[in-house]
């Protein structure tokens, strides 16, 4: 392709050919002019030609039937998956029983003491309060179920992730193999992981734990490898110059030097595990997620909120405590003696609780919030949903959004000829990234067509596009405001912190309360979920603009608007592109989950497949989700070019 433009450029480079972007588009136009007529003459029409689809549901159905039939007899299941499954069930159950045996007083005390030792007094109090609120809401037992599943999943994720990270950190070849895999896993929506594990393990705790491990291990592996590779070269050289063996280097230098990254990996793994443990309620995880899931299914917002609050508290506490542990690394380490005292104190509290009969959360102390919340929601439904003078109601908004934005967008996408969609994808991906990313994106999009889910995928895509547009408009506006006003940023930061730690699932609760079910609420949840990341990246990007450049602009008498337009935004371009990329990935994850609240399209097909036991249909939708995620990530990925430039 490049050879086509090369002679023209050599002869006399007209203005249009010197522009990099124009050159790419021209090349693409030439390629399209040849390929499109061919394709159209062969397979016309707007939707993906049926001649080019491969029906995989048949073979998939056979495979899943075979697995179901042989699950109890085939040696692979008997001697491998069976053992894995049993080990998971036993360990989750053991942790769960241990948590119950310690009792609520004991769990609260141990949690608070650990938080105190690694993160200080304030977080210790916060931890204790969080556990007590879980009890107050009558969610003690589900909280412990979720916690037990989390503990097992996190331990497994950390072990798996650290081992993979160690391999990738020490061996260049492993790194080359693992990195693209891990990078891709990180952009895929959580929902895509559910079906393959269900296929092997069936619905239940083992599937939930394994899906969680698969979802949560990549950050640990990535950060372990990153930490091991990022170690100060001169320190390693100095250590080598003293005659260390390879093992000594690893244990006394590389691993300790990577501690910050390792703890960050632990933090991210815990957060991802919590997020997934909640979503995995769809495949039988039980616990808090299951309560939310059940409540949402019957649009019982009060019950969903009662289970959702503990999830949020758990997320915030876990994030802050592990995050603080990373930040306090440089300080003097607590001596083993204080740990021993803390342990003794915790055991004493647990025993005291046991003898005082405080094992189970007393029912008298439970606060019933579902009733009042539902009454509030009913009031809202009655008064805010519709017909509010001048501004309309929330349901009206949702309806208008669906009619005026989502429907035209979806119909428009589905009306476009299939080849033009591919062409647009190729053009966008190539303009932002390289021809490699463009090729991956086009192949991913084509794979969706081949799988025969072209129309539902475009439906999901239309929701993603609408949500991304809204997210970016609001996100950039808020980000610019936060970058310009210190006071606004100070006020915004804790809000963003909390919003960023919440699991995706939780966002569905308020939008259902406000907008009911349908596609608009799914989009709203996606916007709310993706917004904090976009705002944060935008603010950081704008604030990290070279102060010297800004100062020189100011010294030339630029107004603040000119500074923003001519200096800050252009210099923050990489950050803004990253914000777009993150926004797209996060929006897709929630739009898919939106299938649970009437979002339809691919997400619904996954849920439907699970609910009906029709794994083949679900798997096809899952594969389409993977392709869609891959395509959207590649289309918005500017990183590739930067790395090739640096090399």
């Amino acid at each position, binding site marked *: 392709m490049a050879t086509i433009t090369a002679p023209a450029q050599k002869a006399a480079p007209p203005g249009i050919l010197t522009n990099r972007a124009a050159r790419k588009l021209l090349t693409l136009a030439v390629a399209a002019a040849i390929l499109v007529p061919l394709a159209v003459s062969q397979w016309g029409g707007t939707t993906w030609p049926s001649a080019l689809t491969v029906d995989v549901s048949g073979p998939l159905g056979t495979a899943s039937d075979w697995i179901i039939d042989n699950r109890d007899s085939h040696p692979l299941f008997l001697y491998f998956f069976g053992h894995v499954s049993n080990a998971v069930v036993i360990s989750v159950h053991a942790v769960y029983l241990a948590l119950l045996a310690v009792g609520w007083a004991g769990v609260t005390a141990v949690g608070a003491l650990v938080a105190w030792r690694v993160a200080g007094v304030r977080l210790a109090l916060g931890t204790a309060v969080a556990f007590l609120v879980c009890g107050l809401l009558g969610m003690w037992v589900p909280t412990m179920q979720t916690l037990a599943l989390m503990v097992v999943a996190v331990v497994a994720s950390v072990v798996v992730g650290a081992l993979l990270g160690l391999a990738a950190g020490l061996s260049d070849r492993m790194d080359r193999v693992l990195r693209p895999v891990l990078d891709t896993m990180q952009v895929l929506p959580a929902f895509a992981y559910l079906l393959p594990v269900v296929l092997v393990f069936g619905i239940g705790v083992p599937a939930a734990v394994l899906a969680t491990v698969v979802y949560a291990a990549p950050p640990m592996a990535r950060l372990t490898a990153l930490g091991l590779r990022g170690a100060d070269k001169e320190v390693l*050289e*100095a250590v080598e110059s003293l005659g260390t063996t390879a093992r000594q280097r690893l244990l006394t230098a590389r691993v300790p030097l990577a501690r910050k990254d390792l703890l960050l990996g632990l933090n991210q793994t815990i957060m991802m595990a919590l997020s997934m443990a909640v979503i995995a309620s769809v495949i039988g995880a039980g616990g808090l997620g299951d309560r939310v899931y059940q409540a949402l299914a019957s649009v019982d917002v009060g019950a969903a909120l009662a289970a959702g609050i503990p999830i949020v508290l758990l997320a915030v506490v876990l994030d802050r405590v592990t995050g603080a542990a990373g930040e306090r690394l440089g300080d003097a380490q607590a001596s083993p003696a204080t740990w021993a005292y803390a342990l003794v104190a915790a055991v004493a509290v647990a025993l005291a609780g046991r003898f005082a009969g405080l094992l189970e959360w007393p029912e008298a102390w439970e606060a019933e919030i579902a009733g009042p919340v539902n009454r509030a929601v009913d009031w809202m439904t009655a008064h805010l949903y519709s017909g509010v003078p001048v501004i309309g109601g929330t349901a009206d908004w949702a309806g208008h959004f669906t009619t005026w934005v989502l429907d035209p967008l979806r119909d428009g996408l589905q009306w476009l000829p299939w080849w033009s969609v591919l062409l647009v994808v190729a053009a966008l991906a190539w303009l932002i990234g390289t021809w490699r990313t463009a090729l991956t994106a086009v192949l991913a999009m084509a794979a969706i067509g081949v799988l025969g889910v072209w129309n539902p995928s475009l439906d999901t895509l239309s929701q993603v596009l609408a949500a991304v547009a809204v997210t970016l408009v609001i996100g950039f506006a808020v980000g610019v405001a936060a970058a310009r006003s210190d006071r606004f940023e100070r006020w915004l930061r804790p809000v963003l912190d909390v919003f960023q730690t919440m699991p995706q699932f939780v966002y569905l609760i308020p939008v259902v309360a406000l907008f009911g079910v349908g596609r608009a609420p799914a989009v709203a949840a996606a916007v709310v979920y993706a917004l904090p990341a976009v705002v944060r990246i935008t603010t950081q990007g704008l604030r990290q603009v070279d102060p010297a450049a800004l100062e020189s602009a100011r010294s030339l008498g630029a107004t603040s608007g000119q500074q923003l337009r001519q200096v800050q935004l252009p210099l923050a371009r990489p950050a803004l592109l990253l914000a777009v990329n993150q926004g797209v990935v996060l929006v897709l994850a929630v739009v898919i989950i939106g299938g649970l609240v009437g979002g339809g399209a691919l997400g619904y097909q996954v849920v439907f497949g699970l609910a009906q036991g029709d794994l083949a249909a679900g798997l096809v939708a899952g594969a389409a989700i993977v392709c869609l995620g891959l395509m959207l990530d590649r289309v918005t990925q500017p990183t590739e070019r930067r790395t090739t430039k640096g090399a």
Partner: protein
Amino acid sequence: MSTSTSTGTPPGTARPPAPVFSVDGLWKVFGPKAGRVPADPELTALSPAELRARTGCTAAVRDVSFDVRKGEVFVVMGLSGSGKSTLVRCLTRLIEPTAGTIAIDGEDVRAMDKSRLRELRRHRAAMVFQHFGLLPHRTVLDNVAYGLEVQGMGRAERRERAAEVVAKVGLEGLEHRRPGQLSGGQRQRVGLARALAVDPEVLLFDEPFSALDPLIRRDMQEEVVRLHREEGRTMVFITHDLQEALKLGDRIALMRDGRVVQLGTPEEIVGSPADDYVRAFVRDVPREQVVTVRTAMRPASSADEAGAGPALRPEATVTEAIEAVARAGSAARVMSDGRCLGVVDAEALLSVVAGTADTAGPVEGSRAAGAARVDDGASPPRAKPGAGEAPAERREPTNPALATTEEPV
């Protein structure tokens, strides 16, 4: 070259001690199929740019030969990219050399197996790094003890040893700080202490003070001079700073584009630059602070002259001689072992300052006063028997690269 470096230097009196490091024909080439470059005479003749264009390889060290004698401070100096840091890393094979031989106390370093090489790094040669290379998660004491820990020494014993060394480099009271809580100079003292703690035969310094402020740098240089005076340990010192090289070095190897362009005492480098490059380099050095009276003296014209006047060591600088001559009001005698080697009078000394002395190379141009500080701190180690400005003519066989490739222009 061979004539210019030995001009005016009388035959040495010190017996040549066995070299600690003996480097011969050393090459380090980075790039694809690096091994073919040193072996191919056609390739070795190319300039760095041509070599890069032809083979894609970069020769960081090109056919370097020298001996490091026991007890001396051997300085390798050159600008960035001259290959000096690569050279010092080749000595303990932190970077694997491409060709040539390296011997430590007669033992072939390149032939060592892994465990023998570890042994070398653990006990015989310790290195001090430009950016310190400290472990941020360990206290000062544990950083200093790290080399001993690696050797497998027990906790109490290594901490005791480390505490002694920490005191020796003047860090008492900071034992339990972490590197992040120290200033740059203090961190480099930790780096120095870590190298000293293993009691190595040779200390290797890789631009250790380049990252420090000028005042702290001077403190640290004096610290090195003091340590060398007290312990007489052999040192290989890499620097890009000429003043530092002149101040610390018993002998200096000046590198450019991977080759040693001149090897000699500070006096020889300043007094008889081997080529225009070296000449441009040393142009601003006040030569009275580097040139010794051994070079500036003339034979005593009469027995009377040889019998009276203030006495000077042959290693005394012209600056010192000026002071002595000015005080006495007469010519000074250069004395060694009670024998008068020659005399220096006001006229001879003045001609050194003016740059007209015949011993000196054609040094011209301006003279930045006070640019060089070759103060008496550097003199005592140089006066040590065996480590002094040992006879210049012995230098030639150890440095064939120099003799064959560099012609004074």
